[in-house]
C-alpha cells in the first residue's frame, strides 16, 4: 500500500508546499486535478480562496494581490491557461508579478501516445511565453514546487507547476 501512495501526488503534500512558501491566497477554478485539494484548502483558515469563472481573470486578481503585498498562487487547468494568454502576458509578465501557477496537466501521459490536444499544446504554450515550468507527478517531486516559488521571487515572473497526476483523495 505504501508503494501505491508514493506513486501519487497527495493533496496534503501540495498544501504543505503552499504553506511552506507563504501562500496567502489561492486564485482558482476547479478541475479534476485539484478537486481533492479544494477540500483541504477550504478548511484551512490561513488560506483565502478566490474563485474565478474564467481562468484569464486569475492573472489580474493575482496581480492586484501581489501589488498589495500578498503571495497568491494560481490553480487552474492547462485548458484554461491557454485561454488566458493575453491576461498572463499583460497582468503578470508585463507587471513583473512573481506568481506560481499550478496547472492541471489534462491529457498528460508519461507513456504511450498522447491523444488529448490539451496536453499536446501545454508545454509549447509555456515555451512560447518563455515561462519556466516543472512537472510534478507524485509526492517525490513535491520539492519542485518550492523551487518554483523561489524562482518566481528571484525572477519576478510567473513560474508554472504542471500537475501530471489527478488527486486520489486523502490518505
Amino acid at each position, binding site marked *: 500500500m505504501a508503494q501505491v501512495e508514493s506513486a501519487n501526488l497527495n493533496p496534503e503534500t501540495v498544501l504543505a508546499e503552499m504553506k511552506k512558501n507563504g501562500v496567502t491566497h489561492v486564485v482558482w477554478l476547479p478541475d479534476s486535478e485539484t478537486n481533492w485539494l479544494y477540500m483541504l484548502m477550504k478548511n484551512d483558515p490561513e488560506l483565502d480562496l478566490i474563485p474565478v469563472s474564467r481562468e484569464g481573470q486569475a492573472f*489580474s486578481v493575482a496581480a492586484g494581490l501581489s501589488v498589495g503585498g500578498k503571495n497568491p498562487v494560481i490553480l487552474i487547468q492547462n485548458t484554461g491557461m491557454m485561454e488566458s494568454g493575453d491576461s498572463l502576458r499583460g497582468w503578470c509578465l508585463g507587471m513583473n508579478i512573481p506568481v506560481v501557477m499550478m496547472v492541471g496537466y489534462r491529457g498528460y501521459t508519461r507513456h504511450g501516445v498522447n491523444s488529448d490536444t490539451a496536453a499536446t499544446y501545454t508545454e509549447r504554450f509555456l515555451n512560447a511565453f518563455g515561462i519556466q515550468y516543472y512537472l510534478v507527478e507524485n509526492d517525490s517531486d513535491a520539492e519542485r514546487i518550492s523551487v518554483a516559488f523561489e524562482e518566481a521571487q528571484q525572477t519576478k515572473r510567473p513560474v508554472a507547476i504542471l500537475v501530471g497526476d489527478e488527486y486520489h483523495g486523502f490518505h
Partner: protein
Amino acid sequence: MFQTADMLNIFQKYRGDAVVIPGRGGRHWIDISTNEKKDIPLGDPAMGGHASFGMGLALAQPDQKVVLFDSEGDVLMNLGALVTIAEKAPENFYHFMLDNECYATTGGQPVPNAQNVAYDVIAKGAGYTRTYAFDNLEDFSNNIEEILSQPGPVFVAMKVFPHIENEPIGARRRWQTRTRDQVIEDVQQQMGVSN
C-alpha cells in the same frame, strides 16, 4: 451623458486618501489628481482585467479604500469578474464604470447592444449589494459623497461622452508621466508594501 473630466473633478473633492485606478479615465485624471503617488494608471495591461486587479488590491489592503474607473468594454470582456467581486465583497472596493457605448480608442465602434444594457442591473444580479446608474452630472454630484462614505463593494455605472481616437497608435499623445514599474513602486511605498 456627461464629460468624464467633469465627473472626475467632482469625485476629486471626495477622494480622501483612496488609491485610484483611473483605467480609461486616466488621461483626464492625470490633470485632476492631487495625489499622484496613490494613483495607479496602468494603461491597458490586458483588456477586461481592471476589475479583478482592483478587487485583488482591495483584498490585499483591506484598510485602504480602492477606487476603480472601469469601462463598459472592459466589463463586457470579463463579466464573470462581477460574481467573484460580489462573493469576496471587499468593503473597501468602489467600482465605477465609464459607459461611452463604444470602443473609443479603436475608432468608436459600438459595443454589443450599446444603448440597451443596464450594467447596474447586471452588477446587482451578480450580487453587488449597492449599485447606481447616472446619466447626468447633477445626480452623480448629489450622490457621490454618500457612495464613498458607505461600505463597498459598490458598482456605479455612468454614461459618459466618448473621446474617439482615430490617429495611428504611434502618433497618439502619451499622457502617462511614469513607467508602470514606477507607478507600482510609488503606490507600494504609499501603502507600506515591500516586495
